[in-house]
């Protein structure tokens, strides 16, 4: 299921806190460094590991959601670059496959910005892409994987993304 989508670099800035998603490539020799620990402890950044594939003494990848003030995020990213981590900003966009969605509502309990919400009159589960920050929390919560994300140009479900 590969559908070409427009790339979109919309920023998500709320309460002066950046929430952004990065694709990190770790060289072999960083895998034993407490990278995440440093980010949280020394740079006061909130991180959410969305996807990780790291083995000792091998090149690893990680998709990280980073939350924090602009200056902290900047410093944190500088630290990562310093130790040799390759950083790529993901303009993650999310959409719903309405054929797959069976309107259960499970996703509305995890969406932090109510981009997935219930219209109370008829209990319809709606998705507002304009509100979505691309945090991707709904992707694995949806029991039928109706939420798809695009990391660049391809749309895919989380299952397809993780088996790549």
């Amino acid at each position: 299921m590969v559908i070409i989508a427009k790339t979109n670099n919309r920023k998500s800035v709320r309460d002066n806190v950046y929430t952004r998603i990065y694709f990190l490539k770790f060289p072999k020799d960083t895998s034993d460094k407490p990278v995440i620990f440093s980010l949280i402890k020394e740079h006061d950044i909130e991180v959410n590991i969305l996807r990780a594939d790291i083995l000792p003494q091998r090149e690893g990848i990680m998709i990280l959601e980073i939350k924090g003030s602009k200056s902290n995020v900047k410093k944190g990213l500088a630290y990562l670059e310093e130790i040799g981590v390759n950083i790529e900003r993901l303009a993650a966009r999310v959409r719903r496959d309405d054929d797959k969605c069976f309107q259960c509502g499970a996703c509305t309990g995890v969406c932090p910005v109510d981009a997935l919400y219930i219209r109370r009159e008829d209990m319809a589960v709606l998705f507002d892409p304009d509100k979505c920050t691309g945090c991707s929390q709904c992707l694995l919560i949806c029991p039928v994987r109706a939420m798809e994300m695009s990391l660049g140009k391809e749309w895919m479900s989380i299952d397809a993304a993780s088996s790549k």
Partner: protein
Amino acid sequence: MDQINNIRTYDEINQKIKAGNAVIVTAEEMVSIVRDKGVEKAAKHVDVVTTGTFAPMCSSGAFLNIGQMIPTIKTSKVWFNKVPAYGGLAAVDAYLGATEPSEDDPLNKVYPGEFKYGGGHVIEDLLRGKPILLEAKAYGTDCYAARKLKKEITLEDLPYALLCNPRNGYQNYNCAVNRTERTVYTYMGMLKAGLRNATYCSAGELSPLFNDPFYKTIGIGTRIFLGGAQGYVTWHGTQHRPNVQRSDRGVPLTPSGTLMVQGDLKEMSHDWVKGVSILGYGNSLAVGLGIPIPILSLEIAESTGIGDEELFTQVVDYGHDYTNGVSDPLAQVSYAELKSGSIEIEGKQIKTAPLSSVVKARQIAEILKKDIENGTFQLSEPVKLIPGPNQ
């Protein structure tokens, strides 16, 4: 209790259906009709109330006969798309359970596990007409010489496929929260630490057994909507517990009645039978179920008229209590409150999220209503009602 058929009989209803003048309404419509007109008028006017539910239901699966081959085989281990099925039946019969994960699934080793593919997905893929890899092993006998089998099959190739859910249509279910310090992943979804979200899994006033709380019309042989086809109630379900505490309107306040249901898988549709992956918990199957409730008596009309404000459930801690068998609900809440989007627990407003689709439940009730109206669905009188509460 004895005057059960004091308004109309099954025969009378079916004759009206044939004549095209039966009055059929959905359970949601019935709630407003009873509110507006009063129960007596409603009971006189309405012949049948249709219900529906569409949610993950773990105790689901299918009996699949895979057909013989030459030389013949008595399959003792069977896999569909690497999902193990139970082969300890007859030579080429197997039971594929919806919650069985694919054999190479990492389960919860990478926590929380994703459970990408399981028995429920195989059933959905069969319905989508997709080819399925069938593998089997056998020990070989004089009458069944073959020892293994590997081929692609589709639903069409199977001589027999029966959806058989030993437990379905739960009459009421818990509302789940988590008051521990860590996030838990349960069959009730992801529950954040410290009472920060709540989930529930019932369509409320649309749900079949909420509309017939004492099982006065539902029993063995009740014809139902199942997975997009016509199926039947064949027994009471596993964990059927009629003797629980009930509200003053007679409706259970905790999980209680359940149904065993069956239907021909080949007649069903993937629109109403969906494999699901519940993060950190496992695989399951969401099945569309709808039951017509004949308004045989005033009492039944009264029950179908009960709305979400008068249907209650218990808020249960799934962080500790549920796993440890502690029965100490945090609160009792109504489905009206649950559907409003937040409930109050220990003085705190908590966001609620459903796991059961009201939109699809309503669609099922509407389909059933249309099918009865146009005569393609006749009501059946059960041979034996499922067990009710002792009195």
